[in-house]
Structures are given as structure tokens and as C-alpha cells.
């Protein structure tokens, strides 16, 4: 636990590479807010930072890896989950967090997302969903809701969007939650809970992109979007994920949708090898949970 002796240190500061501040995120962008919640979750869950690794892909959210003072890696586009999978398999004692955006995780890395959920690899995935490809100029992403105006759909998006909680639940995730950047304390608690779970945990955070999404759709700035989240989000713990899809200006269902237990990849692998090889299988030491 951090001990604040004087009032000159922000509680998030020990988790940041201060020399890289100010960051590149736009005024009103919610990604910094999610980093705050993540840092608070690390403080609350008393995780040993030596046993924590953070992996990001490409995109605005991908920059998180460069701003946090943790063991972090900024991978190629869409490959945050494959890198994290390799990291987890090579060193099962690590707590591996994947911190990336919706475009990186669900579009370019969509294949990896569903297969990591299917295998139930012990990763904590935080997906900051700003409903658009933000860094490349506001193109339609798989998560862009219908009728939204984007740079590639100036007359409105007509493609059906991904409902990410439904997708990862169907693929096999053990913990699925969604919050918005307005729900900072709930998000921090959710991340702490995910650290206690063994298996594929997925937390979607709806975040404003005032520069490219809100501006083109005449939804105001970041603050107006936060007020919209406050007004229109409804906590629905345990709601069926098939009913939590997002619409352009509609209600946002938030909460913890899925919390279940399934054997994770490494325990299934161990069980299979013990069954077929018997005594010839030399077991690796059991991965200890350092989350306490």
C-alpha cells in the first residue's frame, strides 16, 4: 500500500513514467481515466509489481504500455494477445495484463481474442472501446454502432457492430464486465476482481473520442459524453450479454455480466499430459497466485 507522507505525490505517480508526461491523448479523451482506475486497482489488490506485465497493441490505447512504469511491451498491431499468451506460457507466475483498444483487440487481433478466450488463457484483458479507429483518423471499426458518421462512412455506418461482451462470453471468457469512463470506482473494483480470477477476463471500458467520434456525430466534447454516460448508463449485473449491444445514442448497459469458473489453459494442459504420459510427465511447479 502506498503511504502518502506529504501531499506532493499523486497516488498514480509511482505507476507512471513521469518523464513522458504530458501524454499525447486529446483533451477529453478517457484513456487516462482508465489508467487511473487501473493504478487504483493495483494499489487496492496489493499486487507485486515485479510479477506484473502489461502488454499493449497499436492505437491510442496502445500507448498505455509506454506511459506506465511497469514491465510493459508495445507489440505490433493486433498481436498483444499472442505476445501475452507466450509470456504467460513461458512464465506462468506472471500476472499478464493486455491493455489495448477495440480496433486492436477486436478487428486486427479479433482472431486472437476469440481463441485466447476459447483456450481460457489466464490473461486480464482491458479493452478501451472508443467505438472507432481513433489514431488513424476515425474510420469505421467493428464496434462502431449503426448510423454513426465516420471518416469512411460519411453518410452513416450501416454495418452491424460487434457486441464484445457477447463475443467473448460465447468464446469462453470466465469474467466479462463493461463500464464507462464515468464509472471510475466500479472499474477499479472490476479490475481488482479480474486479478483474483484464473482464466480469461475481459473488461470493456466505453471511452469518449471527442476529436473523431463525438465531433463527427455532433455529440459535443469529452465532458458532454461523460454526462451522457452518467445519464444513459444502467447497471445490469448478470444481464444476458446478447442484450447489451451498443446503439448510437441509446442506453449503455454496464456491470459484471459473466463471472464463472472454467479450467484454464495451463491446468487443462497439465491434466492432459498427466493422463496420457503418467509418470513420464515432469510437472512444472504450480504457478503461485501472487495476488494474495
Amino acid at each position, binding site marked *: 500500500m502506498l503511504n*502518502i*507522507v506529504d501531499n506532493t505525490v*499523486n*497516488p*498514480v505517480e509511482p505507476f507512471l513514467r513521469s518523464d513522458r508526461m*504530458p501524454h499525447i491523448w486529446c483533451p477529453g479523451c478517457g*484513456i487516462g481515466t482508465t489508467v*487511473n482506475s487501473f493504478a487504483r486497482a493495483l494499489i487496492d489488490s496489493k499486487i507485486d509489481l515485479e510479477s506484473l506485465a502489461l502488454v499493449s497493441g497499436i492505437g491510442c490505447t496502445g500507448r498505455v504500455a509506454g506511459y506506465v512504469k511497469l514491465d510493459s511491451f508495445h507489440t505490433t498491431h493486433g498481436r498483444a494477445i499472442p505476445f501475452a499468451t507466450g509470456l504467460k506460457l513461458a512464465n506462468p507466475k506472471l500476472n499478464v495484463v493486455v491493455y489495448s483498444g477495440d480496433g486492436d483487440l477486436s478487428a486486427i487481433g479479433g482472431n486472437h481474442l476469440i481463441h485466447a478466450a476459447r483456450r481460457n488463457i489466464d490473461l486480464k484483458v482491458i479493452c478501451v472501446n472508443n467505438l472507432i479507429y481513433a489514431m488513424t483518423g476515425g474510420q469505421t471499426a467493428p464496434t462502431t454502432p449503426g448510423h454513426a458518421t465516420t471518416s469512411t462512412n460519411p453518410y452513416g455506418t450501416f454495418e452491424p457492430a460487434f457486441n464484445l461482451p457477447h463475443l467473448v462470453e460465447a468464446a469462453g471468457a470466465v469474467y466479462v464486465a463493461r463500464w464507462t469512463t464515468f464509472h471510475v470506482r466500479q472499474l477499479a473494483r472490476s479490475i481488482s476482481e479480474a486479478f483474483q480470477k484464473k482464466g480469461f477476463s475481459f473488461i470493456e471500458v466505453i471511452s469518449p473520442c471527442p476529436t473523431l467520434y463525438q465531433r463527427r456525430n455532433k455529440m459535443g466534447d469529452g465532458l458532454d459524453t*461523460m454526462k451522457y454516460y452518467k445519464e444513459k448508463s444502467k447497471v445490469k449485473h448478470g444481464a444476458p450479454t446478447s442484450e447489451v449491444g451498443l446503439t448510437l445514442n441509446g442506453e449503455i448497459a454496464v456491470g459484471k455480466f459473466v463471472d464463472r469458473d472454467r479450467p484454464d489453459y495451463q491446468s487443462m494442459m497439465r491434466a492432459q499430459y498427466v493422463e496420457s504420459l503418467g509418470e513420464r510427465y515432469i510437472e512444472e511447479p504450480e504457478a503461485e497466485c501472487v495476488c494474495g
Partner: protein
Amino acid sequence: MAKGRVSIVVERCKACGFCVEFCPTHVLALSSAFNSKGYHPPHVVHPEKCSGCDLCGMYCPDFAIYGTKAGELKVNKATGGEK
């Protein structure tokens, strides 16, 4: 006497206004002064109302503001000069 205190790192602020809007006790307002990047950072208008809940710190996307509870202000307590 205020239960807490809010600290602002003026040069990091990008004036999104989250802290001003969501402060539960309405301690803050955007100032008319500029920082070196041309943004209007918040300033404290009601220091006596601050509860030190640090909600401003949780909302701030730029890590530019944070609240501290009076009990944690050991340095100030020792001198008896808590603001």
C-alpha cells in the same frame, strides 16, 4: 475545517473539465488563467468543502489533479498548519 485538500499540477492540465463537473462537493472551477500550453486549468474556489475523496484524481485523464485526506497530510499536521 476542510477534511481534505486538492493539489493541481497546472502544466499537465488540458482543461477537459471532468474534475470541475464531477467533484461531489463543487470545490473547483476552471480559472481564467492560462497554463503554458494555453489551457485553462481548474482552481480551488471552495477549499473548505473539500472532503479529500480523490474523485477528481480518478477522473483526471492527465494525472494533473488529486485529492488527499486531511489525515494523510502528515507534514501539515506536524506544523499544525493544515489548509
